[in-house]
């Protein structure tokens, strides 16, 4: 069994003025990758390219070690996909939708679907348009999990959901990953969700991958520094997203070890940076 469940190599795609360029991502089996970025950064485009819903201009996408275009049907048979706004035919019932979907998967398991509906408290005789947004998302997740997928791809699944439903979804993802043979690729701009469950984090900004590493490494290396603005001299080139006030400055540093070797940090305050901080300071750098 191949070690990497998903590999994206030098992927590029242009869309009018937007350009997704040289995207490189590797997700090993048994892990959850959070795909973070602001709205319009290129998350959905990347996911659509993985699902072969749009064509790439160049690069490679290998899922389960196989090219995602050449082996599209085999790959999709083992992928569970949930989009930001779950898509179904509104006028059909949950049950009819499941009966329709099961015809196309080789590994569909009715007991999983029924069990998940029961767990989510979803009435299968209800029409899709009678379900709330949270219920639709849960239905989408139930459909995505019922054919025993190996890779779960979720595009902003927690966006617009209340904290209880969000927590429930994250719990299911954690359960899904337990056997260590599967993987989850999970995009979101809600960084707290990513921090809760992801093992790897990929940050995309304006169509380019800023970082793609283990979450713990990121949180250990990337730090926030604060200090008197008179101490800025000599530091500036190593600071990212510098914010100045009348008396102090705040900025992000990429590698605390390298920074400490180069500069005297005794008069600076070094703080943990969370993903939100990283995202905000990187955005400020752009501006």
């Amino acid at each position, binding site marked *: 069994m191949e070690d990497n469940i998903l590999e994206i190599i030098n992927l590029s795609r242009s869309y009018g003025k937007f350009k997704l360029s040289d995207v490189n991502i590797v997700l090993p089996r048994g892990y959850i990758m959070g795909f973070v970025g602001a709205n319009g950064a290129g998350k959905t485009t990347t996911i659509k390219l993985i*699902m*072969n*819903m*749009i*064509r790439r201009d160049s690069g490679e996408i290998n899922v389960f070690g196989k090219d995602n275009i050449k082996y*599209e*049907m*085999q790959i*999709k*048979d083992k*992928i569970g*996909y949930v*989009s930001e*706004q779950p*898509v*179904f*035919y*509104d*006028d*059909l019932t949950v049950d*009819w939708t499941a009966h*329709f*979907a099961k*015809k*196309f*998967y080789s590994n569909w398991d009715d007991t999983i679907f029924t069990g998940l509906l029961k767990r989510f408290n979803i009435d299968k005789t209800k029409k899709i348009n009678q379900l709330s947004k949270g219920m639709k998302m849960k239905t989408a997740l139930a459909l995505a999990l019922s054919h025993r997928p190996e890779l779960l791809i979720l595009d902003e699944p927690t966006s617009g959901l209340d904290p209880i439903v969000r927590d429930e979804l994250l719990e299911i993802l954690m359960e899904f990953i337990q056997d260590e043979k599967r993987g989850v690729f999970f995009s979101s701009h809600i960084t707290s969700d990513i921090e809760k469950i992801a093992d790897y984090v990929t940050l995309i900004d304006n169509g380019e991958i800023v970082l793609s590493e283990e979450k713990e490494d990121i949180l250990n290396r990337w730090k926030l520094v604060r200090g008197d603005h008179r101490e800025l001299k000599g530091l500036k080139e190593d600071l990212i997203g510098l914010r100045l006030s009348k008396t102090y400055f705040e900025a992000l540093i990429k590698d605390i070890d390298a920074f400490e070797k180069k500069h005297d940090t005794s008069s600076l305050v070094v703080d943990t940076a969370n993903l939100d901080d990283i995202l905000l300071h990187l955005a400020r750098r752009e501006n």
Partner: protein
Amino acid sequence: MFHLVAKDFYINRKYFLLVILIAGLISGTMFYENNISGIVFPLVMICYGMLTRSCYHDDKDRGNIFLRMMPIKPSTIVFSKYVFGLLVIVVGFFPYMAISFLGKPLGLELNIEYGAMGISVFIISFAHSIYLPVFFKYGYMKARTFQTVFYIGIMIVSLSLKSFIETIKLSIPISQGQWLIKPLSNMVELFSQNNVMSSIMYILISFIMLGISAIVSVRLYQTERR
């Protein structure tokens, strides 16, 4: 394929029942008035309407995303729409055929006008052949704009072609225009005949048109996925 077609029928089930009812009423009226050629326009509208309605549901519910997240070949998605379009034609004509066959044992002289049927199949297939590639390339909204222009075009052409040719025939000297007028005129004559052969010819041409259109649609859908 079967499940995709069944899904289209199921989603349009209310409209589908209405179609059968209306097709039945129209067919009955046509027999009663002994003017079967009048069936063409309403049937074209009904069948074309049913296909575009199924495309509307795909667009409104973002069905293309729902279908493409599953292991379904793009070509199967495209061909299923064509099969649905063909079955809709069968459904549209079903009441007409049924009334005709059931009427005979009852002693009613209800003859099927094959020419009118052939023309209907041809026009509906032509409409589908043009509409579906546009839908698969640009989606429902743009195809709808196209559809409006197309309807107007169809109406103008169908109402004026024959009289246009007659007018040209009279106004152009024989020596100058016959090379163009004669084949065109012959074609109109041929298409106006009411026999089984002309009907088969219409249906064959319809299948060829739909086949070419389906190949174009698959290419467009595969290269320009929305």
